[in-house]
């Protein structure tokens, strides 16, 4: 598997990561090498094998439906880059 610059641009967009034009070739080469390593998986015959979701095949534990957390909005917003009136601020989305 060999990725082109355009593939990297597409993946970086999906991952919401800025990658500069100067980096594209190096990133394409690194990712291609990793995918070549990954493709060794093709040697394995997995016909009829169940995918493993949990090492001990445990099922999701459910908890009782009751309130256990107290409101800590101020504490959690104190570490946010920008807040106002209890809201997280981002650039305007709708003009």
């Amino acid at each position, binding site marked *: 598997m060999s990725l082109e610059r355009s593939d*990297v641009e597409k*993946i*970086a*967009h*999906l*991952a*919401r*990561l*800025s*990658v500069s034009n100067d980096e594209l070739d190096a*990133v394409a080469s*690194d*990712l291609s*090498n*990793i*995918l*070549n*390593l*990954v*493709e*060794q*998986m093709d*040697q*394995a015959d*997995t016909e009829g*094998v*169940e*995918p*493993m*979701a*949990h*090492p*001990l095949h*445990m099922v*999701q*534990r459910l*908890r009782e439906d009751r309130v256990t957390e107290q409101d*800590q909005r101020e*504490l*959690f917003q*104190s*570490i*946010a*880059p*920008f807040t106002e009136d209890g809201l*997280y601020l*981002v*650039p*305007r*989305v709708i003009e």
Partner: protein
Amino acid sequence: MYNKTISELARGLRAGDFSSVELTRTYLKRVSSFNSGLNSFVTVCEEQALQEAELADQRLKGGHTSLLAGIPIAHKDIFCTQGIKTSCGSKMLDKFVAPYDAHVVSQFKQAGAVMLGKTNMDEFAMGSSNENSFYGPVRNPWKESAVPGGSSGGSAAAVAARLCVAATGTDTGGSIRQPASFCGITGLKPTYGRVSRYGMIAFASSLDQGGPMARTAEDAAAMLQVMAGFDGRDSTSAEAAVPDYSATLGDDLRGLRIGVPKEYFGGGLDANIEASIQLALNEYVSMGAELVDISLPNTHLGVPTYYVVAPAECSSNLSRFDGVRFGHRCSEPKDLEDLYKRSRGEGFGAEVKRRIMIGTYALSAGYYDAYYLKAQKIRHLISDDFRAAFNQVDVIMGPTAPSTAFGIGEKADDPVTMYLSDIYTIAVNLAGLPGMSIPVQPVGGMPVGLQLIGNYFEEAKLLNVAHRLQQETDWHSASPAGFE
């Protein structure tokens, strides 16, 4: 004082030979003397440590029973610590002060342990050399120009250099065992679910597991005793009962069946390391254990499979870093997409970005079956290999890593070569089994680790097997020159 084990120190504290404050000052002094060279701590909590030590001294006078009371330890900077910077080795979290404690951290607080500080690590635990830290590489106490291993390299170096009695680490593909091997210490990755992941910053949630890093198996048992147990705040926390890990340390090993997988020998393994491993195996034979040749035929698929599962899960976990709620935010974003892309582009280092992109690609439309689903199927095959082996043997042994600690910069430019340094440790995480690394005979003056792999929830057995070797040999007590 700093060469004593946890139980020796606990006795000294209770006998009044020294106080926790004195012990803590001794360690803080060592940290300030040696850390500028090693770079093993990213944060030192001098004031808080001394307060905790004073409190521990009071509790000890009141008859506090935990072995860890008053003992100075360090936490890997992946564990959230309330009111203290928790960076995860990343620029993204360089200014992040955690609003709560990780389960593991609060367990140690309850036990009365003293936290000296937070240790350096590969960014978001992604790496095998500690070169991926925003705060610069950690140096190996055995050789300045060598890496300490990763990702828990800061913890491993700090324990080896006696800058703390013991430390916590996390292991997603070998991140406790490989640095333990490179730095000549004892490290244990427990069964998946044994130690709560609450407040432990997530990398690959189906593989991540916290565990102890210490100088002896006996100390690792004391640490694990504090860390292990059910926690309702981690949805995959195991409800299995926690045994007394110290009680069985001295159990006799006569009749122990040790599986020696042929896939872990030959190939890329350094011949001198193979000889060291063989020497340790012979010790076990002389203690009455029996060696059994076994095969783990899908071992070669471990690394490729891991590099689908771990990046896929990391791309999902790290999507929370959006520049909005916490962490790095770019300046003057022109719109929401620019905010996301530049905050993430600036906040994450090269390896983290590579893994996010590999994961994003593997999970993207049209590729899921070929990558993630295929990987989860192979995980089943790898897991079945171990199940079959444990029908025949009690414990599996082999090398922890194919080489001793390599040089800083030696593999930094080639991600795939770096990935292969975890070739013997990765399958254990894919199967969710417990694994350990303990020091055996060094090669060329550098530490070598023997890996022990146990069946699910058999940490006590691993600790027993490790402890017995440490009673018969003194490889674990060697200390790096200049740090004795």
